[in-house]
């Protein structure tokens, strides 16, 4: 681990003022891990755990989740469990109780990839070391992405929570060191790797995530997260699906489809949603939507199975959701 400075910020203003050249630390479950591996080498850490950002406030308009709200607290919050079940299920399918007790909402939005080449400083990685090349392409890529990939990077975005948030039309609230606030639609927050895998989101230097907001929608309450993985617990998704449906009169009026484990960012599938809206729920409709979702997928030999698995997972998630209601 590199030597670094550490500052525990007293309030938001203090944190923002100290942010130049520094990295914010919340629960530390990603950052400390990557610092120990020598992958992230911040010169300074600004601890935001004392900023009073841990509250979860629900009202008629939706839910406002503080950036420091722990995964566990979000998952078991009665309004979230009842009105946004996809988020609760996604959180509880991730990591372990110990990690969920530490991990925060803002931190999880910024979770870094689990790509083994990114995490091994002796391996080639464009994300860690721009221009160095990608070790995963042509290497072991079983866990890697098939959607949103580029010839520079195929690293999977690992978060379960984010897949649920993209399906809930969540909004990321930020504050810049200048004091300016922003509201960023969740689907616009993360970036595909393209030519610059090192740039993972639209945050400006020093910009601090303060809240994540869940709007009230017609589809949120009837939502579901399904995660398929190599063991029953404590494993990253091979494929996951976050689905939300508003069915009225036997017809899908509105819906959201998020996919995890298969994409370089939390993936909202417009083609799948287009295939569902206006139709009556059926396995055939679900399968057609799943085909549309994966139409543009690009696989490596190791992860080609994910294309079919993603389709089946999405179908299953939709079947389970419609059976449930």
């Amino acid at each position: 681990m590199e030597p670094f400075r550490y500052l525990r910020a007293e309030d938001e203003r203090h944190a923002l003022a100290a942010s130049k050249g520094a990295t914010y630390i919340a629960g530390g479950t990603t950052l400390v891990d990557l610092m120990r591996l020598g992958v992230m080498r911040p010169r300074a850490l600004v601890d935001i755990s004392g900023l009073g950002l841990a509250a979860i406030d629900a009202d008629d308009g939706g839910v406002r989740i503080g950036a420091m709200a722990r995964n566990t607290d979000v998952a078991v919050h009665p309004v979230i469990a009842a009105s946004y079940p996809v988020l609760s299920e996604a959180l509880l399918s991730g990591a372990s109780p110990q990690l969920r007790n530490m991990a925060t909402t803002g931190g999880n939005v910024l979770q870094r990839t689990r790509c083994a080449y990114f995490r091994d400083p002796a391996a080639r990685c464009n994300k860690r070391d721009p221009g160095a090349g990608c070790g995963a392409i042509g290497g072991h890529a079983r866990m890697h992405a098939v959607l949103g990939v580029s010839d520079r990077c195929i690293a999977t975005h690992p978060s379960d929570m984010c897949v649920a948030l993209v399906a809930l039309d969540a909004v990321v609230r930020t504050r810049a060191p200048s004091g300016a606030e922003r509201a960023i639609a969740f689907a616009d927050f993360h970036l595909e790797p393209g030519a610059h895998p090192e740039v993972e989101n639209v945050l400006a230097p020093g910009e601090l995530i303060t809240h994540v907001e869940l709007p009230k929608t017609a589809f949120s309450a009837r939502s579901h997260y399904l995660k398929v993985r190599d063991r029953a617990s404590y494993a990253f998704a091979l494929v996951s699906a976050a689905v939300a449906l508003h069915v009225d009169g036997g017809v899908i009026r509105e819906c959201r489809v998020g996919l995890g484990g298969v994409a370089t960012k939390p993936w909202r599938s417009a083609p799948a949603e287009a295939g569902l809206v206006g139709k009556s729920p059926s396995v055939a409709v679900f399968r057609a939507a799943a085909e549309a979702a994966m139409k543009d997928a690009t696989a490596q030999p190791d992860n080609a199975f994910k294309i079919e698995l993603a389709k089946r997972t999405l179908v299953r998630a939709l079947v389970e959701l419609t059976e449930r209601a």
Partner: protein
Amino acid sequence: MSERGLFVGQGLDRVDGRLKVTGRAPYAAETAVANVAHAVIVGSAVAKGTIASIDTRAAERSPGVLAALTHVNAPKLPGAEKKVGPVDRRLQLLQDDAVLYADQPVAVVVADTLERAQHAASLVVVRYAAQDPRASIDDHQGEAFKPASLGPRGEVDSNRGDADTAIAGAKVKVAETYTTPAQNHNPMEPHATIAVWQGESSLTLYDASQGIFGARRKVAAVFGLDPARVRVINHYVGGGFGCKGSAWSHVALAAMAARVTGRAVKLVVTRPQMFAFVGHRPRTVQNVTLAADATGTLVGVTHDVVSETSSFDEFVEPCAVQTRMLYACPNVRTRHRLVRADIGTPTFQRAPGESTGTFALESAMDELAVALAMDPLALRLRNYAETDPAEGKPWSSKSLRECYRQGAERFGWARRTPKPRSMRRGRRLIGWGMATATYPANQSKSSAVARMGIDGVARVQAGSQDIGTGTYTIMTQIAADALGLPLERVRFDLGDTAMPETPVSGGSQTASSTGSAVKMAALALRDKLATTAVADKASPLFGRSEGSLDFVDGAVVAKDDPKKADPFGAIVSRSGQSEIVALVETPAKEDRKKYAAHSFGADFVEVSVDEDLGEVRVMRVVAAFAAGRILNAKTARSQFIGGIVWAIGFALEEQTLRDPRTARVVTRDLADYHVPVHADVPAIDVISVDEDDPHVNEIGAKGIGEIGITGCSAAIANAVFHATGKRVRDLPITLDKLL
């Protein structure tokens, strides 16, 4: 010697349990050593080539750094290349510029704190003249060569009858290739060594080890020391599973760092390094052919094995050994071959040979049962070996038929519908599979000492190790029974080469070897106490014959008059000595050579498989084992269950993957290298089948640490076939193989 004692067999709690769960059992790296410095190993970024240059200037300037050792400045060690046994390994001790595998030690940085050592280690700049490495043996089977030896596992090749001719003429045949991946042991406690020199020629090591005497021999040889001047201490081990059975490079590097800096030095191997230079289970490619007549009687068997080894050592995974003895068949041929890759040397990992080998053999037996349209259990009974087919000897004991019977009954095997995909529960396909488990009953020379003090407390010691199996507990039980003492008046200690020499805790032999020594030492002490008492005029037993005496509750008593008792403490007290001591060295029982000695078992497994998503879950396991005398019902059950949990990982999850171009391991932590989590492990129902074995050793115990993993991975794979109709011959059975 087979009389039932008061304590042996009981499911007593671990005597060290409270210390462990309260965090007061110090593991090697936790030993309080004054003024200890910290060493960090820098691993090679490449897997093959030479070090072109290495720059330690920045590291040396970094705060707190005491030394930065490389092949340029490291002391030359007189015995760096010396092998101290048939299965010893070449270590990488900064003696030259060669790079033989990824993450090989190329520098060691020592500093006053761990964090400073870690940081300085990151400042070492190494340039390599790299060559393209070989990461896998799969495309190089043509290079397979015959290894020099199978170590303790017998001949490299075997041939009985004429397998090829028998197979050619047989009615029913199965000929398939089965592959198992490289795996890593990953005990929770990483390898760790604290090295403390006392002058130039005397060294103490606190080392996370399954074999402290082997570690002593190795380090003494490397540094050219008298082994008597090297002491290895290790009271608690946080799991070993084979990787701590050898002293790997880091042990000698810690000692080197301590010598150069003049400080006590602590070196803890990191989790990523645990995949590099402390051994692994090698990848195997196994071709099995089974041929039977129409009744299912085996007429010919061949088992040809290729496993990977390093470019500089030979380690053979003895996969075909059990094929020589598990079933009665007159025509059996087996072969072991190696192919080299640019990897660290593999090593023993829980049931080396039988774990990998039973996956192939017992999968093939299931395939043969399908080909014969025969029940898999009936096929095994049809080929039951009444005597050891390999050597023609009688079994010291064998209760496999009873294991099959009790296991099948408890599981409900008779209700199985034979057709694949014929059982289901909702969207999940249900499959039932079974397999045979086996592991040899090993025993090595061992020794122990038993002392009786004037306080009436027995102090019993054997060098040995408790690798988490319950050695402290069972030795206490054995000694208490042999001496006729209550448990609280027996103190058993181990984990120090200053104590009597014992073998490595590997091959499931600690209970049989050191347990026998402890029993014999305790009996010898008992006899000395009796001899002393009857010769002592002040004893109420003076003048009695020793045959007329018994040993009850810490006293020598007259059989015909129990009121005439002489407490052990009083005997010692009157003897004028501070203690009475019996030191015993036990060879294997002479009688034993006339017999073949193995543990056996039968696994019955239910899996469920999601029909669309391919996810496999083990729903229940019933396993029956016969392994001679069970010394402690509770720790034995834990051993069996632990082995079965390993088999679940073996069948479904574990694999060490290397990048095909760089030969670096990409599964470098426990998030990427999957082992079963609680949610993967169902209720495991273990049946201990009673077995009295008068021949195997003094305590009648065959060893239980490894048999649990054998057979069971095949039972799981067979259950997956029964559920899905898909035969997966390449482990692990990840869901992509079932889509």
